[in-house]
């Protein structure tokens, strides 16, 4: 599962309205979707002002979302230990504006 950031928080040097995050999971099967939803809920709990979209890999390719939204890869989530992966991504997101 890959996590991307896009929108004004990641592209603008000045103001931003919210923090747009995209989760891309491997397949349309129920289990990867459920894991992605769980990761989304964790991100929403940890990042104030986050808006989180979820797409399967094939849907991302269909919408060409990463390319058209100029999304940047924030990290990859280890599905067996996603809490520590999400923690790292949350701190990277906070640091993004601090640098």
């Amino acid at each position, binding site marked *: 599962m890959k996590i991307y950031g896009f929108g004004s928080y990641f592209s603008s040097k000045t103001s931003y309205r919210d923090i747009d995050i995209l989760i891309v999971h491997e397949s349309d099967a129920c289990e990867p*979707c459920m894991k992605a939803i769980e990761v989304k809920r964790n991100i929403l709990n940890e990042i104030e002002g986050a808006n989180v*979209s*979820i*797409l*399967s890999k094939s*849907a991302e390719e*269909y919408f060409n979302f990463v390319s058209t939204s100029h999304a940047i890869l924030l990290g990859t989530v280890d599905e067996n230990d996603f809490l520590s992966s999400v923690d790292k991504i949350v701190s990277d997101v906070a640091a993004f504006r601090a640098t």
Partner: protein
Amino acid sequence: MPAHKNNFPWMSYYGHYKFFEERMREHNKVKEVRHVNPSFYHIELKDGKVIKTFVCECYSFDVAEYIEVCQELGEVDAVVISSNWCGYSPGVKRYCMNRGVGVYDIRGFMAAINKRNYWEYLTEDEKEKFEENGWI
């Protein structure tokens, strides 16, 4: 474009779906439109069938969002993506179709409810995409 709300229920910026409601009330197969909550309707057809319909402005509706809808509202019969700026993936169309659930834009939903098996309705583009993928 005004921003829609990005998390469930991906409500329209304006907080209503008046355009959708008007199209439904004008439709010659529709008997009654019951507004259950801001984004959920029971559309009763003249043949007595009731279609539990979730309406949203999700920018890119996919299978995970459909699962979230079911977690929040229970089973639905149809999902309508209300805005021209928003869309749904071929994957969620197929996933839902296999479960007897239709996914459409407003125009597609209006066409679909003319059919007995409304969840099987595909636009010409969708037919092409499904054929390309060997899904039909």
